[in-house]
């Protein structure tokens, strides 16, 4: 039993890490993040529910990526750029992204309705058994997907563009003087971050269904990003897994409504006692 709790916790946690990567990308370039990221995860799920039955599961992916990219551009121009350009409203992006998230959720409920939609997995429904631990093929697919993206992101951070990201995060103006188009890089990070959230919604919806519940993934992943460290992919993976396991334990021991509580409390403790994140310093792979 405990083995099952840990393994499926880690599998859920990988998904949190995937969304957390998006927070890390935008935090790296502009020290900002989209507090309404959950709405994009929800969009990923709902678009899958609409498109997958007619055109197939894979066909939903490009549509989601394009839709999220467009929304990422909107978030950047509506919520982030005005705040970055005006030092007097330096933190107004927080409220602005929350507001954008609320609008996006409202719009989705108007368009798609409020019901949870279920989606068939393209893989077999029969779990693979390893001893007394069961893993759904779809869960295995998610794990592979997340690990691939992690690998690609790591490669990216070590590339020339990754260095440009790093430069913009240290000092936007100095980077601009070096000929790095800082505002475009920030825009790019928001597009990438939004696409990652959409992919997460696409990946998870066959297991969880699509609807407002996916929205909660945004804040849980934010917790994973903070707990792990906003500057380390490995930290986000570990923290995501930790939160996933804690959640499963809480669901096992407490009434189901408390499920989300451990992630939140862990996050609050980390912000209070170790704001750099649990795995902040231990990693070589600094962004």
């Amino acid at each position, binding site marked *: 039993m405990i083995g099952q709790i840990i393994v499926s916790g880690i599998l859920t946690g990988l998904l949190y890490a995937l969304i957390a990567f998006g927070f890390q990308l935008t935090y790296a370039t502009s*020290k*900002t993040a989209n*507090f309404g990221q959950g709405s994009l995860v929800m969009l990923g799920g709902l678009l899958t529910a609409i498109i997958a039955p007619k055109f197939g599961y894979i066909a939903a992916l490009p549509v989601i990526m394009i839709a999220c990219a467009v929304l990422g551009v909107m978030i950047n121009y*509506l*919520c982030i750029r*005005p705040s970055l350009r005006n030092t007097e*409203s330096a*933190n*107004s992006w*927080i*409220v*602005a992204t*929350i*507001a*954008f*998230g*609320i*609008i996006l*959720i*409202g*719009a989705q*409920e*108007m368009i798609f309705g409020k019901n949870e939609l279920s989606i068939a997995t393209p893989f077999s429904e029969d779990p693979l058994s390893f001893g007394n631990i069961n893993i759904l093929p779809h869960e295995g697919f998610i794990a592979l997907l997340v690990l691939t993206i992690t690998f690609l992101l790591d490669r990216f951070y070590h590339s020339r563009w990754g260095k440009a990201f790093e430069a913009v995060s240290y000092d936007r103006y100095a980077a601009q003087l070096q000929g790095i188009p800082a505002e475009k890089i920030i825009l790019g990070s928001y597009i990438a971050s939004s696409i990652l959230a959409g992919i997460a919604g696409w990946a998870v919806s066959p297991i969880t269904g699509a609807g407002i519940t996916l929205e909660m993934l945004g*804040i849980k992943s*934010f*917790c994973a990003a*903070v707990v792990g460290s906003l500057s380390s992919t490995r930290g986000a993976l570990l923290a995501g897994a930790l939160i996933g396991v804690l959640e499963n334990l809480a669901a096992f021991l407490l*009434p189901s*409504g*408390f499920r*989300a*509580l451990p992630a*939140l*409390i862990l*996050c*609050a403790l980390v*912000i*209070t*006692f*170790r*704001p750099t994140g649990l795995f902040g310093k231990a990693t070589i792979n600094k962004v």
Partner: protein
Amino acid sequence: MTFKTKLTTWLPEIDIAFPGLLIILAALFPFWSSTPAYTGQIILLGAIYAIALLGLDLIVGYAGALSIGHAALFGVGAYTTGVLTLQAGFPGWLALPISAILAGCAGWLMSLPLLKANDKYVALGTLVFGLSASIIFNEWNSITGGSIGLTLPPQRWAGLQLSTYHYTYLALILLVLSIKIINTLTQSSLGRAFEAMRDAPIAAECMGIHVNRHKQGSFVMGGLFAGLAGGLFALSQGYIASSSFSFEMSVNFLLALMLGGKKSRLGILLGAAVVIFLPLMLSSIMEWHPIIYGGLILLATYVLPGGIVSLLPHKYTSKKTYIAPVSHDQKAIHLTSHTTIDTSILALDNVSMRFDAFYALKNVTLHIKPGTIAGIIGPNGAGKSTLINILTGIYTQTDGDISFCDQSTHSWATSKLAQAGIARTFQNLQIFCGLSVLENILVGLHHCHENNPLKIATGLHTKKDFTAYERAWSLLHLVNLHEYAHTLASALSYGQKRFLEIARALACNPKLLLLDEPAAGMRGADLEQLKVLIQSIRRHGIAVLLIEHHIDIITTLSDHIFAFNFGELIAHGSPEHVITHHAVKEAYLGS
């Protein structure tokens, strides 16, 4: 006392008259409303929200933190009242203050991330706190009743069965009291300290204001108001369910504050009205709610950052009327008692400051005697500003000992060093832009005010304020800024701002004054005035550490010059000795 009436007109008139009129109009509702029961309920809710918003305004508007979890504090108040009256049989009038206090404690808990994290993380912390609280409210069924809710027993106070009418008037009375308290608090030294730390936190810290403690204080006080409002909400509605204290409610509170206008009582009343009337007006298009709410928040953030209040005329034309005091008994500069002591007031022994592998200061030993001027020279990057930042506790040295007045200052906080008698000015000006010139000086005089919020709220603080106020005028005369006393500090010229910083630093009664390039950007008559001022400061027994590039100023004023290069002390002694020293010449001109 004419003085007192003058001191209490700092608020724009619009913020005294209009809220007063609105509240009187609301109190007369049985006479003008055709559906008094319904109107009474609306006014009741409006007053409750307004009380909670006053608390949020302290946190967001004055202290400049961001709280996305205010509904949690509101909820703590409501559930405390609910549980106390229902399960412990407390009467409502007793449960209310307990609710406020518990919510104040919750506010303190919510503010803990302030100790280590930056303001973005603190905002995230409030969001996480709010979400956790709403999960607990929703799931801890045995205490909170969860989504089904709690039904409170009806209240009977002194034989009187309380109805909506009574609650409406109770809420209005509590609202008036709350506004009164907030007005007093925000016009006091404490309110000034809040605004100062919002505009320039490091400078506020150097005035002896413990910034984090003050921010935490704003959360506690904000919690008190939210808790009172929550308790009143529970009593008057007779029923509470977890949906009233969710994330959406926190967002509503923020929306109300931002849309109405921060730092304004009228703004809060308008904001509360919007949050109450908006759902009523939009009841036929429920599904549009999130989009409209979100749109309004975006609008309030970027299009109308001052809120509705900023659209009204006269908001900024009202002048803050301080009058100049008649007497000039107060000496501008306080004599320090250390003039007679012959030992060093400041002693650095082998102090080093290392950033990774780079030494910004290396094995620096220097001693400064009271009543002398120590000049610090050196090319850019010599470590001059690092030295000042270490002395004021902004950095902690990686090696070596510093003692001030024979006490080791290791790991003292900036505000503690300031209180001990180290004041400074800044190379890059750090004035409190949103305050007037006089108020800037008054922030420096923070230490001679009554800063206990309880005493301020009860009006026991005014006497000390008069002395501080007279002293501030003397300081303004000293630096020739008395004509600009009521001007916004941001409107002063560059040179005037430099003098303002010196006067503000003198207000802290320093024993050691650190001047970081005071003459930068000054010319002609200003330079002469600066020299006279610094000499007069020395005559009062204050030790001065003067960083300057004007060779003329540094050689005529300094008793002793310390020359730095690449973080090392390369020469020190009398001005003649140092400026002819070969190492100094080499540092500036090359060999």
